[in-house]
């Protein structure tokens, strides 16, 4: 996969994430290309989100997004599995 293809894919992921996660809770987004624990080239998508919704709502965003991303990560190097996780700010103590 070329650098350009990787950048294009990162931008596409960014757009898809913003389509699925409300702007008022998404604070940041990390998209990394790296090997997973099985040694395979993969994509790691980490959503940084504000505290304030129910866990159910966060899970709904993650599940819909997860499913959607799998349609987008076919590359010239083959299918790169998109691992999706979240970093929800801890509630105030």
């Amino acid at each position, binding site marked *: 996969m070329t650098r350009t293809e990787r950048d294009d894919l990162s931008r596409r992921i960014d757009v898809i994430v913003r389509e699925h996660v409300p702007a008022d809770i998404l604070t940041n987004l990390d998209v990394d290309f790296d090997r997973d624990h099985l040694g395979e080239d993969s994509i790691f998508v980490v959503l940084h989100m504000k*505290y304030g919704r129910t866990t159910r709502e*966060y899970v709904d965003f993650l599940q819909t997004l997860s499913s959607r991303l799998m349609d987008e990560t076919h590359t010239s190097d083959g299918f790169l599995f998109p691992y999706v996780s979240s970093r*929800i700010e801890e509630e105030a103590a």
Partner: protein
Amino acid sequence: MKSDYLIISARILIDSSRVSPGQPKQVNNRRAVSTAYYAMFHELCGQVADTFVGGTGADRSEKAWQQAYRAVNHGSAAQRCKEAKAQGHGFPAGIISYAKEFADLQQERHEADYAPSYRISVRDAEAFILRAEDAISGLRACQLKDRRAFCVWVAFSRR
């Protein structure tokens, strides 16, 4: 091992995290993520054994059932789950979703169990438990023929 009890166990860990400040909280959160993954893993083992040999109440050989239960390997199961959608096998949505969450959770469990610097909030750990729970429910709701096809896909390698 019943996957439902593992989900309950993961929830107990998170509940104790909410009331115990300091270091044990991270330990509990990490163990909760790991336990949520194991709920998914044991659900898959049970599905393999039940769909191949027979469920509770069936006229089945217990030895054969246990052998089928132990046929699932963590690494190859995750690999097959990753391929389930990518290669377009026509699995229903409940199975695709289960496969996606299985791979996500196994990766997270790997971090939670082995990465010294790994930290996770109560909310994020709880989200993984919910994802595991939803995925298990979705898998169970699929037709027997689809669950069996998925179990064959996961348990048997192609030649």
